[in-house]
């Protein structure tokens, strides 16, 4: 037996302060709010730091700082704004290892993913939008597109720094200023980013970071000084935001939940399809809005595919997120773990068959083994509700039309997967899927040049690519 010895990434590289204030107007400030919150390492439950939970007065201070910075930043030549963004991109590259470790500590995701996926994409995103800052006249939004003003941005905990990049890079490139609220369970990389803004000598107030939970977010999006709201998170909260913005002139983009179908046709490249299914649902512990959480497999190959999938899951390595060989890290919070457990129990109660590989679970921290449900019907909760965890629901289909019908039979429409070696079938299927991103013979690929966002209740607006500028410009 070839046992891989522990290969932990050193955490000495990160320097976490015991407590953090708010980053407003280029400075660390003490919040007026007295609420504090401890952020923990979900793999160990160890307290990492204490952060402020900003109140309305703190949010107001941040919005005012952003509003004050807006005339300066928006009037600056695009080429100069670009150079600030390029600087930020470089600083992120220089500090990539530190940021990857910090992300893994605060989020629980495997270091292999924060190192090889999150951080390279974060830097790439800033590089990409840096280049747009002085080329907006060529972007197809008129000869002199104008920024909107102050962008209030609220991001989730699944890709903390990457979501920050998706929000801040296009906003700044277009000439907006920003108040960003990171998720309450994963504030540390956003706070580290504040330090990067200082190292880049970004003008004060252009980026402001306020930490907190839902109330802080609500105060931000409802602040009358905010001209643009960008939110990534649950459909439930997205709905509340959309409702609360009714009657305002605030521009809104939403990137919300999903229940993506990953369709495997009988002529699929099977080994790669298995990898795609695994990557689709177990990447980032399934904490991915575009996760391929519903496997739709053609009945004629279902048995073979499931056998291969189970064999493959037997090789997955769950454990210490800082170990470079870990494939599945910790669930981000006790709350999320409870939700995953609740839905999994519902799956069993509704009659689906539950399977997990033999997989030792650490004693401390929040963990959930990779789980596959077979015999799932469209009516089961695990086939309809977003679980946001490492839980795959397997359904079968007989014909391409049935696959598409089942795939589209959801209020969501963020992403989908198609696996076939037949080009015409792939294009036929892709054209009928009501989803903003269709991965064929691949899954969970991201790139700053590629627009991302959903149909239906998965939200509106696009992030990435030329399309990603639209949400930050007055048309």
């Amino acid at each position, binding site marked *: 037996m070839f046992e891989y010895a522990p*290969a932990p990434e050193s955490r000495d590289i990160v320097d976490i302060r015991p407590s953090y204030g708010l980053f407003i107007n280029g400075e660390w400030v003490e919040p007026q709010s007295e609420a504090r919150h401890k952020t923990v390492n979900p793999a160990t439950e160890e307290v990492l730091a204490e952060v402020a939970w900003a109140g309305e007065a703190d949010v107001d201070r941040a919005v005012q700082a952003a509003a004050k910075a807006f005339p300066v930043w928006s009037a600056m030549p695009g080429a100069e704004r670009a150079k600030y963004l390029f600087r930020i991109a470089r600083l992120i590259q220089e500090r990539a290892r530190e940021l990857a470790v910090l992300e893994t500590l605060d989020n629980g995701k495997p270091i292999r993913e924060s190192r*090889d996926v999150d951080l390279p994409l974060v830097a790439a995103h800033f590089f990409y939008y840096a280049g747009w800052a002085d080329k907006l006249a060529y972007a197809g939004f008129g000869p002199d597109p104008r920024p909107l003003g102050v962008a209030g941005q609220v991001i989730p905990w699944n890709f903390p720094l990457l979501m920050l990049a998706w929000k801040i890079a296009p906003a700044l490139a277009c000439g907006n200023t920003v108040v960003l609220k990171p998720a309450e369970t994963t504030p540390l990389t956003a706070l580290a980013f504040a330090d990067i803004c200082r190292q880049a000598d970004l003008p004060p107030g252009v980026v402001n970071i306020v930490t907190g939970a839902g109330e802080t977010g609500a105060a931000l999006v409802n602040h009358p000084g905010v001209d643009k709201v960008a939110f990534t998170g649950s459909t439930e909260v997205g709905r509340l935001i959309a409702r609360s913005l009714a009657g305002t002139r605030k521009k809104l983009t939403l990137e919300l939940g999903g229940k993506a179908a990953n369709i495997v046709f009988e002529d*699929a490249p099977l*080994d790669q399809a298995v990898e*795609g299914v695994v990557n689709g649902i177990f990447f980032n512990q399934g904490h991915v809005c575009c996760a391929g959480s519903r496997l739709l497999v053609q009945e004629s190959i279902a048995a073979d595919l499931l056998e291969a999938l189970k064999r493959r899951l037997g*090789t997955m390595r769950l454990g210490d997120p800082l170990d470079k060989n870990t494939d599945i890290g910790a669930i981000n919070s006790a709350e999320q773990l409870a939700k995953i457990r609740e839905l999994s129990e519902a799956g069993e109660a509704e009659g689906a068959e539950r399977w997990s590989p033999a997989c030792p679970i650490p004693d401390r921290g929040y963990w959930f083994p990779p789980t596959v449900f077979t015999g799932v019907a469209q009516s089961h909760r695990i086939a309809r509700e977003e679980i946001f965890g490492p839980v795959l629901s397997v359904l079968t289909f007989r014909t391409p039309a049935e696959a598409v019908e089942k795939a589209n039979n959801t209020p969501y429409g963020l992403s989908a997967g198609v696996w076939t070696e037949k080009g015409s079938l792939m294009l036929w299927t892709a054209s009928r899927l009501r989803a903003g991103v269709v991965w064929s013979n691949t899954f969970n690929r991201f790139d700053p040049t590629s627009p991302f966002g959903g149909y239906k209740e998965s939200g509106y607006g696009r992030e990435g690519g030329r399309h990603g500028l639209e949400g930050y410009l007055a048309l």
Partner: protein
Amino acid sequence: MTTPLAEVASSPSTLRAFLHGLPGVDRVGADARAAMLGTRSIKTTAKKQAIDLAIGMVDLTTLEGADTPGKIRAMCAKAVRPDPADASVPPVAAVCVYPDLVATAVEALAGSGVKVASVATSFPSGRSSLEVKVAETSLAVAAGASEIDMVIDRGAFLAGDYLKVYEEIVATKHACADAHLKVILETGELATYDNVRRASWLAMIAGADFIKTSTGKVSPAATLPVTLVMLEAVRDFMAATGRKVGVKPAGGIRTTKDAIKYLVLVNETAGPDWLHADWFRLGASSLLNDLLMQRQKMATGRYAGPDYFTLD
């Protein structure tokens, strides 16, 4: 002789239908999977274990026009005792030579347990008549080779004449008698991963004991993704027929880091059952010294220097 699935070779059309009915391989996906496995971090005790495992899997190879009995004897000495200064280093699995030098190698390795493999069938191009290929195989076996590394007829394969390729392998296997047959696919000339998968199955159905990537004379030689596809093939063949076939990447594997990546690939694709010299070999020459240097570094904590390792 009957081999599992031999009935699919009952006619050119059944063989073709079978091979073309195998699931396709998406190159980008296979490359990505191999690259991901290449990021596994094998350290400390695992690395020690991997290095000794890799040394014991090496087919120490010389396949030069300039090979002489002297060169073969020196290499054989190294095969038996890779590090003269350290008796704890295991011997390699086999040496691999041209047919006319088999007798020399057999004599040099007598009693050592290190096997003698011979290339055959008009290596490396395979461009000769079947009679010549069979005769060459028989002579090598008669000279004492216990393993034969044959090449397939890539021209016939690419022309779609799968039955010709099949029949040559069957005939060569017959000529091998008790010797193990490794079938070299020369994946660099097959060009696509779909072809690698088809050629792997073709060879296994025809009776191959091992499937091997390359002659070392064509670039690219062994790569991680090609080896991944072949490991999937032996895994699936085992599941379908119950017969276990080995895999040998050859050519271009020069560093300990490379070798460990291959071991990870085996471990997580075919599974730990294949992590043995009976089922996995590394066709290489310069790799051995790098393994020895890394081994010494792990033992002493100092980086090793090439002057302290023999060049045979």
